[in-house]
């Protein structure tokens, strides 16, 4: 997004932007974006419409199979919807992988009273851009999924907490919500939709921490975006202190296929532990960076091949899985099947679906320092382990990068290990708990300070 004082913001997906392209866009020209890839190796489910069906037309949505999941939800009932999600073993796609059916069930079982359904569309994990594709290219799908969520949980009010830097998504969501209201898909109860449910769009202010579910609730309530201690969990005391289901965009969109076709059909692809498909954000030194939908169980190497393989002649150095809060794996992990259970067994994580590929031409140490700086900048500052720990971690990396460790490399690594353990154990939320994970894994897996060439 480029803005010039006094003029309307220009929002265009450039891909790799150079000065000439930005200047042309500012001059009003429509610059053809260096389009990111949107591909699938198996069935196109999550990406069924993305790039193919007009995201601004409710008619096109209906004609391409839209609203059929909602119709089936009304037939199978609330328990039926939750039963399908449990049978499909759907877990959250935002990074924490919590079972969605159990979350909805917990909210549905709370005593009668206001409940909320919140879509976490604050996508801000570095290297993650899958939700953006769904939000921009298929906004009606999210709305339909949220209506089903409202039905299953008994929530009458939904919120979409949208990353502030996604203006096109905001525009398309507002448009899609207005059309859905006019068509009776959102809003008060009536004969065809025997329950009330509406959605409010809230835009974030640019803080990574507001993607943490409890900080997100605080932000919607108008408070400072600081995480709250759990328990109580949001399903019991969430937004405005009421039972709240908070789901990631991709998780909600996945609900549609499961409810429409049933859990058995959904599990036709994937692994026994992780049925279905997953979006991966492949970036870095690959030929065709983009969003790829692949069945769970696809091997890491196959995914990179799908993205065209390495873009240059340099050999593969490592892969960051799951984003800045994830872990680095070495080239020896190309055979790793991408499923929740296999990642866990390998000590890795799928996180939000980030596959950030580094070949040997990319200097690793500055990358690690950038990650450390990111966590220092994005810590909310509430708890001591994260507020100060992220600073100390960055200082430690600076010393190693400058070749001036306190003591020797082993002493610094021991210090980082202690620091990381305390941040993991004693921080309030996932930010501090994972702030050292990528850096520690890189030091172990890729040995950047041992190979002097980097």
């Amino acid at each position, binding site marked *: 997004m480029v803005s010039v004082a006094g003029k309307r913001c220009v929002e265009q997906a450039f891909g790799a932007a150079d000065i000439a392209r930005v200047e042309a866009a500012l001059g009003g020209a429509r610059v053809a974006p260096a389009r990111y890839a949107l591909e699938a190796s198996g069935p196109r489910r999550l990406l069924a419409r993305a790039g193919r069906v007009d995201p601004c037309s409710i008619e096109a949505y209906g004609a391409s199979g839209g609203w059929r999941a909602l119709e089936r939800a009304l037939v199978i009932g609330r328990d039926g919807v939750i039963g399908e999600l449990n049978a499909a073993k759907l877990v959250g796609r935002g990074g924490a992988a919590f079972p969605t059916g159990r979350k909805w069930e917990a909210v549905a079982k709370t005593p009668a009273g206001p409940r909320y359904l919140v879509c976490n569309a604050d996508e801000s994990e570095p290297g993650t851009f899958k939700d953006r594709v769904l939000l921009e290219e298929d906004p009606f799908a999210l709305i339909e999924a949220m209506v089903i969520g409202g039905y299953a949980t008994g929530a009458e009010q939904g919120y979409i907490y949208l990353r502030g830097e996604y203006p096109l998504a905001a525009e398309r969501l507002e448009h899609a919500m207005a059309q859905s209201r006019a068509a009776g898909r959102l809003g008060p109860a009536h004969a065809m939709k025997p329950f009330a449910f509406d959605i409010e769009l809230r835009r974030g202010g*640019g*803080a990574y*921490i507001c993607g943490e579910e409890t900080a997100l609730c605080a932000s919607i309530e108008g408070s*400072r975006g600081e995480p709250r*201690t759990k*328990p109580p969990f949001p399903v019991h005391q969430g937004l405005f202190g009421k039972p709240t289901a908070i789901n990631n965009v991709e998780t909600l969109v996945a609900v549609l296929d499961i409810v429409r076709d049933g859990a058995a059909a959904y599990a036709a692809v994937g692994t026994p532990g992780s049925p279905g498909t997953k979006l991966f954000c492949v970036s870095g030194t690959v030929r065709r960076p983009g969003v790829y939908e692949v069945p769970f169980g696809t091997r890491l190497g196959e995914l990179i091949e799908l993205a065209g393989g390495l873009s240059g002649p340099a050999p593969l150095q490592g892969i960051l899985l799951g984003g800045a809060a994830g872990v680095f794996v070495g080239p020896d992990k190309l055979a790793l099947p991408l499923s929740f259970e296999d990642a866990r067994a390998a000590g890795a994580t799928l996180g939000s679906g980030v596959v950030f590929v580094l070949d040997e031409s990319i200097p690793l140490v500055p990358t690690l*320092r950038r990650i450390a*700086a990111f966590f*220092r*900048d*994005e*810590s*909310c*500052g*509430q*708890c*001591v*382990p994260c*507020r*100060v*720990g*992220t*600073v*100390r971690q*960055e*200082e*430690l*990396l*600076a*010393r190693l990068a*400058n070749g*001036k460790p*306190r003591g020797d490399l082993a002493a610094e690594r021991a*210090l980082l290990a*202690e*620091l990381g*353990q*305390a941040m*993991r*154990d*004693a*921080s*309030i939320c996932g930010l501090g*708990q994972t702030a050292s994970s990528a850096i520690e894994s890189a030091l172990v897996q890729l040995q950047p300070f041992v190979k002097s060439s980097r």
Partner: protein
Amino acid sequence: MKNLNLTIDGHAVTVPEGSTVLDACRKLAIDTPTFCWAENLTPVNVCRICVVELEGARTLIPSCSRKAEEGMKIRTDSERVRLSRKLVLELLGSSVDMSLAKDFAPLAKRYDAHPERFGPRAARAAAGEREQAHAGHHETGDGQTAANVGQPMKVDNELFVRDYERCMLCYKCVEACGNDAQNTFAIAVAGRGFDARIATELETPLPDSACVFCGNCVGVCPTGALMFKAESDLRKSGGWDETKQTETDTICSYCGVGCQLTLRVQDNQIVRVTSPSDHSVTGGHLCVKGRFGWAFVQEPAAQDKGGS
């Protein structure tokens, strides 16, 4: 009320429903350190010094806020607990001036904490420098010195000073100013991450802010970041001498509420006024009159009258 049975460090303990894990630890006389907890404030669990290990939990849990549950198995002195407590002490000790926090030195000894492991302290910030930090941006140094919150003291009124290089961001002052006592909301946390700090709206000086000078923030501050100006001046001049100080309990004479005051006196001069946090009338909190309205007591004329 229902009773809950827990096991802490192998000892069985029963506490009423609604108790915290900290309550249960204290019932067993297990010495559990706290900085941000106070009996007259809602627990915020931000300092993380009170963490304990709960069997089956992925991370450690803050004992000050975590409600006790039936069957919890807790360890308060495991290797993980000791490591986290040690690191919390080191991180605080290397970034904040904790020299007036009364529990800090003994705790550092108990947990073998060495804040200097993170290097010598970086230079202090100039006045106003930390307030100008922009969220999401910072200067990356060479890591040879430890960043800290060092900065000049803020003195903008005659009643209390704000020495934020002693501020460990325990949120107590914010709570006392807000929902937990005064409901004035003159201060809040501003900024993000390491730049987070206690601030008035738009950093206005206290006399121009919403502050009503009840001093309840001073009353709850655990590190001496907020301090009576009388005390601060004495400390600066080297005249502060705790061996010459006495404490006298009295009742505030301004109105009929009956707030108990504890006057700390040195050389026949009041240097600090507090109220016991378990007092049934005050809960530890006072108003501007009880907290600061005592100058008349020290007027020579008043003292003569009292003597006659």
